[in-house]
């Protein structure tokens, strides 16, 4: 492994062979390719194996509650919209416990990059089904498989109005690094759902399983500005083929631009408005 200014000396706690290592490497590469420094980035982590990613990157870090990475990122971004925010979340964290925030962040067009490490299982809590678990996959707690039809995150994001929707695969590192960089450069909500094999708990959607199915959209003539086409791609039956790459890209008004007061500068950059407050107080 090459060294990086984003390396930390913390022992990595993921299982050997976990797809997260490749995602971590792709993140480092994407950061370096943009000439970013550790202090330039704020990583927000959910809770789960995916959510641990920020522990292994020398950056600013905000690591809170299960399912609540996006609201935290929203607050940080409103406080200082110059922050370059990348969120690492899991399929359980983001689409399960945090499902409501996922929809809300899209509707806000929150100007961040969301990486969902989608291993189609709850990894850290030992293999329960997640919102993206295959109906055929039994677990200790749902021996007959999940009782809920899997959620299609990309289709959902598209109908909810997301501006940048992509899919990555941990096994395609170069492509992923490129996608991350593109997402970070997109002004507005940019999400990448990243298929990530969980070697410990997901025996169905293995590295090989994905490998056999992924198909780079770049090779198909897909037009990422066409919403119905993007939706059709997102709704491809996942068992047969998995299109990766940018499904959709359409800039809109990013969240910060929806606040007049943030037009000039970040909220953190304003001095204390003592005089104005005095005016208000003397007018009461």
């Amino acid at each position, binding site marked *: 492994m090459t060294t990086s200014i984003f390396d930390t000396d913390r022992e990595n706690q993921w299982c050997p062979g976990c797809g997260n290592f490749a995602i971590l490497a792709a993140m480092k590469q994407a950061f370096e390719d943009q000439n970013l420094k550790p*202090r330039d980035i704020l990583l927000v982590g959910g809770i789960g194996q995916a959510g641990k990613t920020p522990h292994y990157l020398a950056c600013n870090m905000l*690591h*809170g509650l299960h399912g609540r990475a996006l609201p935290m990122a929203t*607050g940080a971004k409103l406080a200082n919209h110059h922050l370059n925010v990348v969120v690492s979340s899991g399929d359980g964290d983001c689409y399960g416990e945090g499902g409501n925030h996922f929809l809300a962040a899209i509707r806000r067009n929150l100007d961040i990059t969301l990486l969902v490490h989608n291993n189609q299982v709850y990894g850290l809590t030992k293999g329960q089904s997640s919102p993206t678990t295959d109906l055929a996959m039994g677990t200790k707690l749902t021996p007959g498989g999940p009782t809920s039809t899997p959620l299609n995150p990309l289709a959902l994001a598209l109908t909810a109005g997301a501006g940048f929707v992509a899919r990555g695969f941990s096994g395609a590192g170069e492509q992923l690094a490129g996608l991350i960089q593109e997402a970070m450069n997109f002004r507005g909500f940019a999400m990448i759902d990243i298929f990530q094999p969980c070697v410990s708990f997901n025996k169905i959607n293995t590295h090989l399983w994905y490998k056999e199915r992924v198909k780079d959209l770049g090779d198909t003539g897909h037009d990422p500005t066409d919403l119905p086409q993007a939706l059709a791609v997102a709704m491809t039956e996942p068992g047969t083929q998995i299109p990766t790459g940018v499904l959709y890209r359409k800039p809109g008004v990013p969240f910060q631009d929806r606040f007049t007061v943030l037009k000039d500068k970040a909220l953190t950059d304003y001095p204390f408005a003592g005089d104005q*407050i*005095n005016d208000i107080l003397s007018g009461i």
Partner: protein
Amino acid sequence: MGNDITILIGGKAGQGIQTIGAILAGICHDAGLFVFSTDDFQSRIRGGHSFHLLRVGSRPLSAPSIRPDILVAIDENTYDIHREKLMSSGIAILNKNGGNDGDSKGNIYRVPLQDLAAEAGGKIASNTVAAGVVAAVMGAGLDRVRAVIESRFEAKGEKVQTLNLAAVEKGYGQGRDICFQSPFSFDGEKSPDHVVMAGAKAAALGALAADCRFFPFYPMSPGTGIVTEVAANLGKLPVVMEQAEDEIAAVNMAIGASYAGIRSLVATSGGGFSLMVEGLGLSGITETPMVIINAQRPGPATGLATRTAQADLLFSIHASQDEFPRFVFAPGSVLDTFKTVKRAVMLSEKYQVPAIVLMDQYLTDSARTETNDFVVGDEHHSYIQDTEMYQGETYHRYKITEDGVSPRCLPCTPHALVRVAGNEHTPDGLPSEEPLNRVAMVDKRFVKLPAMTRELRLPSVFCNNSSFFLTGWGSSKGCIMEACLHLREEGIDAGWIIFEDLWPLDAQGLKDMLTGKRLIMVEGNATSQLGTLIRTLTGIEYLAAILKYDGRPIYPEYIVERVKDIQAN
């Protein structure tokens, strides 16, 4: 003694009874009189029954009264609902167009409000007619009345202004014929030292004065009133409000913004606060400042959405799994609210702990004449240590210090990396399961407690040698004070003890203060939560408790009555 009357204006939701009260309060305030108003309304938008209580006095008032001298009935139900409470010397003004047929007789006066308004140019102004009637009854000069109407409707254009002036005069003409025993002198002048304000506005201004800039919210009565008052200042200040998808998002947004350097406050009520509990703990373990205002209402669950209660004290002190230091306050008046919210923001920043301010529907919605001490202090002073930022990557967000407070830097500033985790963490902010580190971190957080305790004030005591003390907390302060003074006038040797700072308290100091005192708890809950807290901190048992949990304020009259009951037994 001075003059002191109460006007009850009742009607249906949507009939604008609060407007009548507001006009009258304006006229009184202009004449240097003191007012106290409070609202009683249902969880609906139209119909039903609501009422507005306006008390006016020639001396400062700290509580409403439930016994009206003037009863204004805009609809037909009002008189029946409230007639029993009317003072024997009082009068009732019934809206003849509101379904109250018949003529004036005895102390009942029937005035056709809509007809008069129509005569003045539009039925819509019938509330202004009503205000005119009452203003005249109270003895206000027409000039004063006109002046208030003029300024109130100025922004609405000349047509509306003219209509309302005509309407108020119509009413005034009728009111002059009504005989009322306790008219006021309206010769005084408005004092620059006084201001009429409700608790919701005071809370909003307190937060702004302390440099809160971010208010994520999810609407919930009665907390919404507070954010509404913040919103009134949008555009004038560097302030961002954001409607969250739910309360969980709101509290996590506040923490995220605070991490990035912006003081943040969320206002909600009990149900929303329940949903914020996990986030409260996150603020605790990450040592990220944040203020939550819980405007209490009766619960549990949906409870009584537009009513009042003081029943979340112990919940606030213990909310969240595991333990961490926090502040809990409960201001007792509108001015106290302003000052307390400022202090809460400042102390939360200073100690890097969450602070909870307990208000309630009664406090947020009741307006009163307050001494105008609403000023920007130095609570906006920054506690963020920029100098540390230059330490670069060796900066440790959770450096162990003697006082437990670690240098706080902002993320993405030139050098420091700021790492924050809701897992237990080492000083650098990264998660750790090490047992010794865990102990060190719990201790680090708790070592702040003595200094935090010193920041808080023990309760205020009145008449230190009384034979018993009416003991309460928060919003009922004024009611307790009034009841106490009333009892003393009747020769009953009552004092009061009132808590506004509630956690963490100096247990020994409190014990010293309370030992030997006979306490009668006065609280808006069913189990005497403050009484329980006192017992917990000091081992002292209270004598009796006056508990009110019907969703309505603890009117002074109620306290007086119950004290007499207790004494009779």
